């Protein structure tokens, strides 16, 4: 693999590449994110943002209690989020555990949801604590079952102890298994990496190793997709594009529960990475409760009043 000519696969070249990155000033990044959170999105732009956000949702269920029935219900909702309004777009994908991939794919195809992807969390999600053989098998199983997107977690232990090459090699291996069958999203668990410098480093490493998307969090650790973390990742994909002419996607996940939060994310995308990233192929939002709030805000914009929560479905 060429790694965009940025590294040659050796530890020395990876260290040099990561060492060339400028730091992130935490106070400044926080201030920039806070300023962008004051953007006031109204009227037609709000309507556009709501529909765009719906199309970017990776509708997620990642619970020990998941059942085929629960996943099938989620798939139905993913294809047609509002049963009373066919103008509501489908979501980007459903995101499930490995063993639910086949059930989700089959059900989506059955109900005409060929265009909705199935994302499988992988590599011993959420902790990433398993042998490489297990991580490879985990990924291979998901692809065999029909996953079109793999959301892998990195080994945060290796990252935090400075064994970057191990993390890099893992991403490269999983990338190979995904091949052309599945898009690869690399989850950093930014709540465990803690510093913005680490987030920036992880972003550039994952992109060079072949990630199609970089993703903030598993949703199992707080804080998750905070605005400054997403800002740092959006700056990374913007700068990576300037270096390679390749656009990498970003997926915040965890903690984005309402329309206001989702619109703030879109403002960050617009003003940091640029409007080219405002598409489900380059920006996804990992969420579950968010979708219903987007639907309720959409109804409110159409009807002029807030409906009871009983007018959106619980799946």
């Amino acid at each position, binding site marked *: 693999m060429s790694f965009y000519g940025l590294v040659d696969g050796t530890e020395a070249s990876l260290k040099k590449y990561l060492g060339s990155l*400028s730091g992130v*000033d935490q106070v400044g990044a926080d*201030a920039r994110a806070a300023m962008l959170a004051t953007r006031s*999105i109204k009227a037609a*732009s*709000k309507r556009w943002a709501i*529909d765009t956000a719906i199309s970017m949702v990776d509708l997620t269920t990642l619970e020990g209690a998941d059942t085929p029935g629960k996943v099938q219900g989620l798939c139905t909702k993913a294809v047609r989020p509002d049963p009373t309004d066919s103008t509501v777009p489908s979501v980007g994908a459903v995101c499930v555990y490995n063993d639910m991939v086949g059930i989700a794919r089959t059900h989506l195809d059955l109900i005409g949801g060929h265009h909705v992807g199935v994302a499988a969390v992988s590599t011993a999600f959420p902790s990433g604590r398993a042998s490489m053989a297990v991580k490879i098998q985990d990924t291979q199983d998901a692809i065999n079952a029909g996953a079109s997107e793999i959301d892998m977690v990195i080994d945060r232990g290796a990252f935090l102890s400075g064994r970057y090459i191990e993390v890099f090699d893992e991403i490269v291996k999983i990338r190979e298994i995904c091949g052309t069958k599945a898009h690869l999203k690399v989850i950093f668990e930014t709540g465990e990496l803690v510093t913005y410098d680490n987030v920036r480093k992880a972003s550039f490493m994952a992109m060079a190793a072949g990630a199609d998307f970089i993703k903030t969090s598993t949703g199992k650790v707080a804080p998750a997709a905070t605005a400054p973390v997403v800002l740092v990742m959006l700056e990374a994909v913007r700068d990576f594009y300037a270096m390679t002419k390749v656009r990498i996607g970003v997926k915040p996940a965890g903690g984005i529960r309402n329309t206001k939060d989702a619109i703030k994310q879109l403002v960050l995308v617009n*003003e940091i990475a640029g409007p080219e990233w405002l598409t489900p192929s380059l920006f996804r939002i990992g969420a579950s409760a968010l979708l219903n709030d987007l639907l309720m805000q959409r109804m409110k914009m159409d009807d002029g009043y807030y409906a009871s929560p009983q007018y959106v479905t619980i799946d």
Partner: protein
Amino acid sequence: MEEKLSFEYAPAPESRALVTIKAKYGHFIGGKFVAGSKHFPTINPATEEVLSQIALAGKAEVDGAVKAARKAYSTVWSKMSGKERGKYLFRIARIMQERAREFAVLESLDNGKPIRESRDVDVPLAAAHFFYHAGWADKLEYAGLGTTPKAHGVAGQIIPWNFPLLMLAWKVAPALAAGNTVVLKPAETTSLTALLFAEVCQQAELPAGVVNIITGDGSTGALIVNHPGIDKIAFTGSTEVGKIIARAVAPTHKSVTLELGGKAANIVFDDAAIDEAVEGIVNGIFFNQGHVCCAGSRLILQESVADEVLEKLKARMAKIRVGDPMDKNTDLGAINSKEQLLKIRELCASGDSEGGERWSAPCDLPAKGFWFAPTIFTGVTQAHRIAREEIFGPVLSVLTFRTPQEAIDKANNTPFGLSAGIWSEKGSKVLWASQQLRAGVIWANTFNKFDPTSPFGGYKESGWGREGGRHGLSAYLKGVSHE
């Protein structure tokens, strides 16, 4: 899904319904609004709409205001305990917070600055200055200025148009906390928030004559400066006028503080956090349309990162939203006056003719009103006028350096010395540079941060004295040796 190439933000205008602007204003003297004799218009610089008629104070009005201030000083304010004075300041601060939206809307209408800045910076900081100084009022003997620090008496205060309400707060709050009474004149293009503040003084039941606000132009200012009944002059504005004031008060008993111009260096070292440095550069020069005395108007870039920083800076500048100051999403508003716009244009023309390379962010400027696109000049040297003179607009001059000492030498090579910025992730370098720079305020990895507890003021031609903190308070007390 509807296909759209970009995320166009719909207009999100703040309502101006919550302010009432009278057709004509008088002066606020001795606790009452009194009619003026002559008037001049004040306009909204974003639309050129005439907002109101402002009174022009002459000798009679200045005499009346000084007399009212003297009477209030000798009969009420100097006899009142610090604790009681503090109560009035706390009350003013709370009312300013309660009426914050009103102040913000009025400030943006009269000044042209974006509502986001008047709402999030000017008004909250102005209230914070009153809160901070309210706390000092009964603790003056603990300020390290001797056991019995005394007020000067009547303070004459002349403030500029760039932060009308905030500059009023910087002047009035410490003066009152220290026990002075004041005669304040706002700038001729931005009198409205000062007149609203006069209403707040009434609402707070501040004793009559403690605060007197008279409006007018430079001639009114000269009457204040030369008035024999005034004990202390505080001025914020241009270095040119500051020098005139210094000459005028030199043979008198008056003490004086001057907060004047600047041409601040914003130094970016190659080990800076580049994205945040770019934000800091933008905030340094485009905050408040660059109408900031401490603006980071000279970017001094290390050559090894100059191309990267400039490329990112231009991309960032292209995202600056220029337009209607009342829109909540506007980042850069209107130039305050036609006169100032002409001055900016003249200096930019000199930048062109002296060989600087001009680049302006692509943006549509409104047809009416006074506008100037965010602009940078590259290839600027120390010898260019745009590297030496204060432009006071959204125009950045970019210079480069090779070694840290060269950066310091260039930064200090100016008649001014108000502020400076340092961008580096290396702590030792930041500390070293901050000791070498000859400027009153030095920001490290940030810019244009203000706080009432922090003294603000300049070296050299940037002024005399400090405002804010204990240092600023001492300027309103006498019998005290100044640091």
